[in-house]
Every structure is written in structure tokens, then in C-alpha cells.
């Protein structure tokens, strides 16, 4: 995979997660107790052996850049290659951001200056653990111009796959159509593709001349002229496209099979290190069916929850069916059910905060109740 560079494309203008993305990009939304969305996309590339990855950002990138730093945690602090964080290259004052392809065009030198011949482009809100090796070998073997990764979404509900793109493929595996509503086969496009660098650069330049600013349309427009092939991802996939699906997919991690699949198979997921001590359970702790990150202190009751790093649950506090992000503190005697706490929420003694599991409410960052 020394011949492949990666792009994590965060240039989509869709806002999917409302409160959770008010002050952060979707790529830096916390997930799974200690990660951010981008950790999965980045770890997949690194675990495949890709040593040069660009992150095309859009806005609200402070938390993202803080998280990524020099790329050290992903082994991307390299002399050769490494991590490139590339914000939109729009010329002031006339520039206007209209689509993600502008980022590709604005940073065309990232491609031109690389000696590698292939590019893998991925999004960050399709959360999965995959190794691109096999897909890449298939790309070479089939002689495809572009290989699109998809997931068979027959087992997913309509809500699960809302605002996704779908593929229609023929018996040879060639992609014949792409549409924004489910096809009968429900083949969900993972917004991840493999392409030769030369073709990508040609397509970017051609699209731009035609004033096309969406990378998705760039591929769609090539369906007739190029050999576009589909590759199926068989592992777990969480499509996070709403607060409800964020909650649902988070809670799916409480299934040990999903836990194992997403966090270990085929590779480990890397993230920024916080050096928290192991989680401390005191004598009265009662924890059941929960995912608990390090640095927590649990004196109360926690059921069906995800606790991020450094959460404190004081004596007599009860938390059920909730996602509690980093460094929240729930004081004695409080009762919390069916909510998502963003980071650093403080709940004082004997408070009661409940929400609906099916439409969980989000308590915004640094709220004090």
C-alpha cells in the first residue's frame, strides 16, 4: 500500500447531528466511549499501510485539529508522507464554498506532488473497521476506473439509511446507477472509493471546468463513460446520520459481538491519548450492560450506558440508557435516563433529567444543572 494515498473528505455541507455538531465538525463527534468519528476512517487507512493521508476539512475545525495534532497517535508523524490537514482553499473575498470538490481542486497539488499512483477517498460518518487491502487488490484485478465501497443494507431500517446514496449494479458487479433513495437491493454507498491518481486529477479538472462542485456528482456523471465497479464491505457499519441514529449505533456497541467487530476486527482503532487511570469501581457501584472508558469513578448505578473518559458518578446517582461524554460529573442522588450529555456537563445533587430513548435529547457541552 506504499503506492496509495488517502483522503478523508469532510467537505460535505450536510448537517446531520444538530446539537452535537454545533461547535465541532462531524468528524470530531465523540463516539464509542473514547473515540471521534474520524478515528475510524483514519485507523482504517493506517492499518491498511497507507502512510500519507490528507484530511479535507470544512469549518469548525478547532476540535478536529486539536484531536489530530501531528498525527502521532495514528503513526502519521512521518518525514515521508504523514498527515496533511487541508482546510478549504477559497480565495478571499470572492470565494464561496459550494461543494466538496472545491477542496479537491484547491488542493490539487496534494495529488500532483505525491509520487503514489492511487487514492482512497473516505468519509468519516460511516463508521466501520475495515482493511482496504482486498478492495484495492480487486480494484487492480478488475481493471476498474473507480471502485465504490458499499454495504448491503437489507438489515437496516429506512431511518438507518436516510440521506444515503445507493448503487444499482449489474451481474458483473459494474455500477449502473446511483440514486439518493434506496434501490431494491439496498446497496448503500459508503462514500468511499478507490481511484488512480491520474484519473482523479483529470476528473477534478474536468468537473471544475463544467462547474460541478460535488465529488458525488463527479462520480455519477462518469457512470456511462467509466468502468465503475462495486466492492462489498461485509463487516459492521454504523451510518450516523441523525441524533437518533447516533444514539442507536452507540447503544449497539453494548452487544459484545459488535464491540469486538468494530474495535478489533481487523485492526485496532487509534485515538488521542488522555492518560486516564483505569476506571475505579467503589464498594456500592452497580454497573450493568455498559461500555465504560478509563478515568471514570463509579460510586452509583449505571445501566445500559456509554460512559466516556473521566466521567464521575457519585453515590446514589442512577444513570440509565444514556450516553455520557468526557468529564461529565453526576452528583449524589441524581437520576438520569434516556439522554445524551455532551462533554463536561455538571449535574448537581438530586436532579432528575429524563428523555425519550427513541428521541433522546442532547444536553449541550458544559451545561450546569
Amino acid at each position, binding site marked *: 500500500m506504499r503506492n496509495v494515498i488517502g483522503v478523508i473528505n469532510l467537505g460535505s455541507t450536510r448537517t446531520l447531528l444538530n446539537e452535537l455538531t454545533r461547535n465541532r465538525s462531524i468528524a470530531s463527534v465523540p463516539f*464509542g*466511549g*473514547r473515540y471521534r468519528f474520524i478515528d475510524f476512517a483514519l485507523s482504517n487507512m493506517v492499518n491498511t499501510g497507507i502512510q500519507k493521508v490528507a484530511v479535507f476539512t470544512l469549518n469548525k475545525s478547532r476540535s478536529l485539529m486539536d484531536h489530530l495534532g501531528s498525527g*502521532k497517535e495514528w503513526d502519521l508523524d512521518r518525514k515521508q508522507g504523514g498527515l496533511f490537514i487541508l482546510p478549504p482553499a477559497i480565495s478571499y473575498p470572492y470565494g464561496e464554498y459550494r461543494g466538496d470538490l472545491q477542496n479537491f481542486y484547491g488542493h490539487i497539488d496534494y495529488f500532483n506532488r505525491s509520487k503514489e499512483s492511487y487514492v482512497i477517498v473516505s468519509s468519516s460518518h460511516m463508521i466501520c473497521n475495515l482493511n482496504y487491502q482486498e478492495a484495492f487488490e480487486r480494484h487492480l484485478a478488475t481493471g476498474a476506473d473507480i471502485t465504490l465501497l458499499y454495504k448491503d443494507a437489507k438489515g437496516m431500517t429506512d431511518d438507518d439509511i436516510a440521506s444515503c446514496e445507493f448503487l444499482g449494479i449489474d451481474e458483473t458487479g459494474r455500477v449502473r446507477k446511483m440514486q439518493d433513495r434506496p434501490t431494491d437491493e439496498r446497496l448503500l454507498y459508503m462514500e468511499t472509493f478507490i481511484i488512480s491518481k491520474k484519473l482523479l486529477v483529470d476528473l477534478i479538472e474536468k468537473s471544475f471546468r463544467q462547474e460541478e462542485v460535488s465529488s458525488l456528482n463527479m462520480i455519477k456523471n462518469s457512470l456511462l463513460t467509466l468502468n465503475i465497479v462495486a466492492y462489498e464491505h461485509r463487516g459492521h457499519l454504523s451510518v450516523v446520520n441523525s441524533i437518533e441514529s447516533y444514539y442507536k449505533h452507540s447503544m449497539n456497541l*453494548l452487544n*459484545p459481538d459488535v*464491540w469486538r467487530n*468494530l*474495535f*478489533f476486527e481487523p485492526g*485496532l*482503532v*487509534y*485515538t488521542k*491519548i488522555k*492518560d486516564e*487511570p*483505569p*476506571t*475505579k*469501581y*467503589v*464498594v*456500592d*457501584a*452497580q*454497573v*450493568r*450492560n*455498559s*461500555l*465504560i*472508558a*478509563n*478515568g471514570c*469513578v463509579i460510586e452509583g448505578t449505571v445501566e445500559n450506558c*456509554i*460512559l466516556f473518559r473521566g466521567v464521575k458518578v457519585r453515590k446514589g446517582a442512577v444513570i440509565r440508557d444514556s450516553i455520557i461524554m468526557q468529564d461529565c460529573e453526576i452528583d449524589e442522588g441524581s437520576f438520569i435516563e434516556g439522554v445524551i450529555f455532551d462533554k463536561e456537563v455538571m449535574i448537581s445533587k438530586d436532579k432528575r433529567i429524563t428523555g425519550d430513548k427513541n428521541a433522546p435529547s442532547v444536553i449541550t457541552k458544559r451545561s450546569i444543572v
Partner: protein
Amino acid sequence: MKKQVVAMLLAGGEGKRLGVLTQKLAKPAVHYGGKYRIIDFALSNCCNSGIDTVGVLTQYQPLVLNSYIGIGSSWDLDRKNGGVTLLPPFVQQGGGEWYKGTANAIYQNINFIDGHDPDYVLVISGDHIYQMDYSQMIATHKRNGADATIAVIEVPWEEASRFGIMNVDDRGRILDFAEKPAEPKTNLASMGIYIFTWEVLKAYLVADEGNPDSSNDFGKDIIPAMLREERILQSYRFRGYWKDVGTIDSLWESNMDLLADLPELNLHAQDSRIYSVNPNQPPQYVADSARINRSLINEGCLVFGEVDHSVLFYGVHVGRNAVVRDSIIMPNVRIGENVTIHKAIIGGNSVIEDGAVIGDIEAGPSAEIVVYGEGSCLTADVSTQVATASEEK
């Protein structure tokens, strides 16, 4: 580039009394506290004290330790100037030899220290569990214009004869020093943490090396020589948690100390954070059937059974109906269903098969600690046999 302080970390200890736990690694590399290795405490203390130049003196079984320390990035010690340097014994013109004693280890690395041209040298050991801001101790040393400053801690009188005991005047100046005295005059024990004015120490190291009768040890030779010649030796009183974890009992006890509701050693403190190499494991999963109390559990664990008053390192799986009590379970141990583990230390990557019973349950809390080394495989039959054998012993 000149450094005010260079730290020399003695990490060559074989740790014989830790038995199977130090079969393949040096004592400072032994696991501690669910996530750490013992040496993390000394290295993190350096980092938290603003000391960025650390020489680590290795000798016995250095493989694990060397790869663990790497270039020191986990402790922020990957520096262009200074940083961490591993200092194993080496050969030079005219031969070479093992480090004969703690003082000889520093003597053999005079060139390393001189290369940084420090005013002071901090000598610490990689065998102790404690959180300490060395910069305060250095300030004390400077304020007193001392030649050497030794950190001391009050120990229970009945244990004082196990330590090097200092007799100090009312301003903290050390009057005399007795190594493991039968009748201790005070209960101020040396913690094995020294700050020396480098120029002075260097002269003593050279003189000590010239003395064929010397055991080349700080406690036995260098400090007594400095006292004899009426050098200014200052004590620095440390208040807090400090433990030498050189024996199975003390290692176990020190791990159990962390399980108190408010342990004396606060791993959560932001300004004295202990750093370690991160294994990149996901959050732990605690199943519906699990019960966890009075325990410290690290990431990557999967708990279906009961864990009480125990320390679990990363990647430990505890099967259904298993009971782990008063035990330390090192990384990636697989504990099957219906297993009982009582007052044991289980080495990393061990497999405990379904139904195995480990430890002397009948003896209760006063049972002897059962220890299994790295990569043990314990079946239901074998473990009962071994348990019986250890009872007979």
C-alpha cells in the same frame, strides 16, 4: 546544551524477590495498577517536575524495558535536547564490566552527565511507587546550599529497621545515617531519591571507584563518606504515598491500596498524572451478568462475571459466573466461565480454563498470595493440583 538537572534512573534491578514476575523482565518493567509499569512513576515524576533529561541505567533483562521506553514519547521525553537515553553497561578501551553497584553505575556514565553539563544530578530508582515533584526538592537543595539532599519519609517505628534511617537536626540537616539499624534513632527512612551537586558527586564517585574495598553503593559508601567529611547533607521530607514494591507481598498490597475509596495515591490528579505506553484498547464492556465492586478496571476488558477488590489490566476477559477476588490480573488474561480466583497474581497472556479454582479460598483473607507467571495455562484439574501443592509448601 547546558541542563540544570539531569536525572539518572536506576532501572537495572533484577527483582529476585518477585519470582516468576521478573523471570523475563527487569523489576521496573513489572506491571502495576491496572495500566502501568513500575518505572512509569519515576518517568512521569520527571516529566511532571519539568526534568527533560533522563538517563535510564539498565542491566538485568532489558529487552521489555527498552522497547517499552522507546524514545520516551509516552512521558514527553522525546526531545531534541536531552530526552530519555538508555544507558546499559558498555565496553570501552581497556575493557568493560557490569554495573557493580548504584554508585558505579553513575560513575560509568560520567561522560553522559558531563555532556549535559548539569548543576545537579537527581538519582532515582525505578522500583518505587510514588508521586513527587522533584522541583521542590531541588529548590530545597539550592536554598540550603547542600552538597546532597536525600528524600526521607516517616515510616512506622516497627518497620524502621528495614530501611536506611536518617538522624536529622531541627533544620533538616542529616547528622548520621544508618543502613537497616537494629535500634533506629528516628523513623525517617531514605526513599533512595538523591540530589547531588554534580561537581561534588563526581569527585566522590571517582574517589569511591579508587577504593577496592567499596561496594560502590550510594547508601553504603557514598553517603557515609560525605558524612564523614562533613559535607552538607540535607533531608527533604516527603509526605504522601511511597512504596517499594520489591516483594510479592508489597506489590500485591500496593495494588490493593489503590482500591480504597480515597486512596492515598491519587491517579486522577491532573498535575501529577502518571503516563504510560498506551495499548489502544476500546472502553471496557460490563455485561448484564457482571458485578464489579472495589476494583480498578482498564480498557479492553470484557467482564461477564464477578470482580471484587481486584485490579484488571487491559484486555482481560472474565467469563460468566467467574469470581475474581483480591487479585491482580495482568494484561490479556482470558478467564473462562465458573472460574474462581482468590488472592492471586496472574501474569499477562495467561489462560484460565472453565471451572478452574485458583488460590486458597478456605484460608480467606489470610491466604498466601498465589502467583502465576506470564503465559500460564491453567486447566480445572491442574489448578486444583497446584493450589494443593502451594498449600503443602
